[in-house]
């Protein structure tokens, strides 16, 4: 099994995808570590995962549903908001985890070799734990309000992957920028906060005027959130298909450009981190 390893300028480029596969076990271990650490460090870790989306949902229902009296698009307002909280939270956590991941693992990067893509990719996994907890909460909420999803629920994994791909793409950009410019980490929480209000989390995207709908769909989370609402409401929530396609195109573009930029910067990570 002895193989000859050749190191020269530009060499890692060529072996990249093969190496990525070879280091898959490291990917599992890093993800496992992050999950372990996350729920060890915070005693109220699980409680926190429940409270944060729940309280946000309560506030949104109060402001958008009760005060602004926005339409709830065929499902009870709390269910509608929480169905959006779920993918939004997945997106937001994996985006911020991903963009910080290189900095928090800088000791690994400066000391050993492995395809760096593993780090932001494995950090996304952590957000799935929170996602699972919130999903259970959503199920309870749906029981409470007697919302039955039916077969539409089968589309949910597709939209989940959609959200993960979008956050990975953006996360790769931010992670690489974070290494190069350390003050980028102040930008990320702001982006996440802004995104919460720009994306249709607290309200239905149906209230967006028709002529703006396509432009609004450039935000990939619009398609994801619409998709989530549609699949858990059994198709009762509105569904804007052109918007989904636009969101999907943006997402794929984000991922591909993210990988491209990350790979371009990757070579110098060990030197600048």
């Amino acid at each position, binding site marked *: 099994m002895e193989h000859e390893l050749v190191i020269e300028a530009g060499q890692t480029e060529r072996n990249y995808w093969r190496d990525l596969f070879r280091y898959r076990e490291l990917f599992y271990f890093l993800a496992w570590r992050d999950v372990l650490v996350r729920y060890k460090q915070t005693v109220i870790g699980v409680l926190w995962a429940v409270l944060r989306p729940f309280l946000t949902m309560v506030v949104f229902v109060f402001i958008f549903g009760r005060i602004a009296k926005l339409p709830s698009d065929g499902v009870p307002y709390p269910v509608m908001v929480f169905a959006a909280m779920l993918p939004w939270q997945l997106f937001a956590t994996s985006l911020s985890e991903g963009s910080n991941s290189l900095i928090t693992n800088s000791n690994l990067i400066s*000391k050993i070799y492995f395809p760096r893509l593993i780090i932001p990719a494995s950090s996304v996994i952590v957000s799935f734990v929170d996602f699972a907890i919130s999903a259970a909460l959503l199920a309870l909420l749906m029981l409470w309000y007697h919302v039955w999803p039916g077969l539409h629920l089968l589309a949910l994994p597709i939209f989940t992957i959609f959200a993960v791909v979008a956050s990975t793409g953006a996360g790769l950009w931010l992670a690489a920028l974070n290494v190069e410019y350390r003050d980028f980490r102040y930008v990320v929480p702001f982006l996440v906060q802004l995104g919460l209000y720009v994306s249709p989390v607290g309200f239905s995207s149906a209230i967006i005027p028709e002529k703006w709908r396509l432009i609004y769909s450039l935000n990939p989370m619009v398609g994801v959130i619409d998709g989530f609402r549609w699949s858990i409401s059994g198709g009762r929530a509105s569904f804007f298909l052109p918007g989904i396609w636009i969101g999907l195109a943006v997402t794929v573009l984000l991922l591909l450009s993210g990988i491209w930029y990350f790979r371009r910067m990757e070579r110098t990570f060990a030197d600048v981190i």
Partner: protein
Amino acid sequence: MSDAIITVENLGKKYSLRHQRNERYTALRDVIAEKALGFFKNLKSGNGVSVSKEDFWALKDVSFEVQRGEVVGIIGRNGAGKSTLLKILSRITEPTTGKVRIKGRIASLLEVGTGFHPELTGRENIFLNGAILGMTKAEIKSKFDEIIAFAETEKFLDTPVKRYSSGMYVRLAFAVAAHLEPEILVVDEVLAVGDAEFQKKCLGKMEQVSRGGRTVLFVSHNMAAIEALCSSGLVLAEGKLVTRADAKAAVETYLRQLSRRGPLPLDTRRDREGSGMLRFISVELAADNQVRVPVFQCGASAILSLRFKSTGERELRNVRVAIGIDDESEQRILLLDTALLGQDFRTLPSRDGTIQVVIPKLSLLPGRYHFTIFASVSGVIADWIKNAAFFDVEGGDFFGTGQLPPQGQGVFTTPHSFHVESKATAKETKEPASVS
């Protein structure tokens, strides 16, 4: 083809040093500010003033071969390119030019404890660290018992490693790395950590690895260890390969090269901390009459000349300068500090100058001493280079008798005298002895 396990051809690594910025990393706001400033300057003067970038070759045209089973000592001063070479070999950073061919798995003890997470238990960390070092899960499982036996931490397997003593921590970390069984083992001077007993164990492991026919690259400043453990040596200076010979010849070359050295440059050192308000750029040894010397003499005067430059426009205020001196086992044995003397520099001229640290009569015994250089400006650390360089002390005539304590009788001496008192006088001078 020969049985070379590592073939290095014309290896080179270039770094770009940024001169205007002294931060360890770039901040976006600085880049924006700089660009904006440059833009306005362009408007005014018409020609662009950009950040001066200077290329620095950490390694240049290095070629050598390592045979299977060889134990190679890599020798060179700080900044000679040793760590860069190791980093390229372990693929952490890519070379700028040249080519390396390696047959087999390479593992380095640069990595001791890399990826250990303080919140995780010993058991969890063994798996994690093993995976990081490139072991498969099955491999780790099969060696698990061996690892904990070597580390002697059975009792604390399920304790988070943040509660470990530093000795235990290092033992566990080393145990994982030592059981990696690579074809090529790279050992950097991590052996200085841990207690003497453990160091012995580590060196033992290294010997065992090399006897098993595997290849070891050993980086150390300890010439005795190199001579004892290595079969051959490789001397680097300023990024170039100076000698590739057997261990003894390599050590000799290195020592000869040392004795001819001029001022030791510090400005290329990257492992420094501080704001950079003031920066040490070189250090030089001098004796009595400011004459440059290769080594100090015990009992004679010793002067360390530190050349510095400052980056600010204004003169520097309240500058504290300190030199910490360590012996070979990295034990801090002396601190020379302007603060101790109440002699912080009120002001230092801007731009550049030399600070001389004068020891009128050196009391260190023959041996090698490493030193750390520190400076702060108005309480803010400006430059801090740990283990900046070392100096050697040769035997001298401390007492005017031509005699010095034999080796093993301490690291320094001090003026002293012996007196005999008769019983009668002892009664009269019965004062409490002052103990400090």
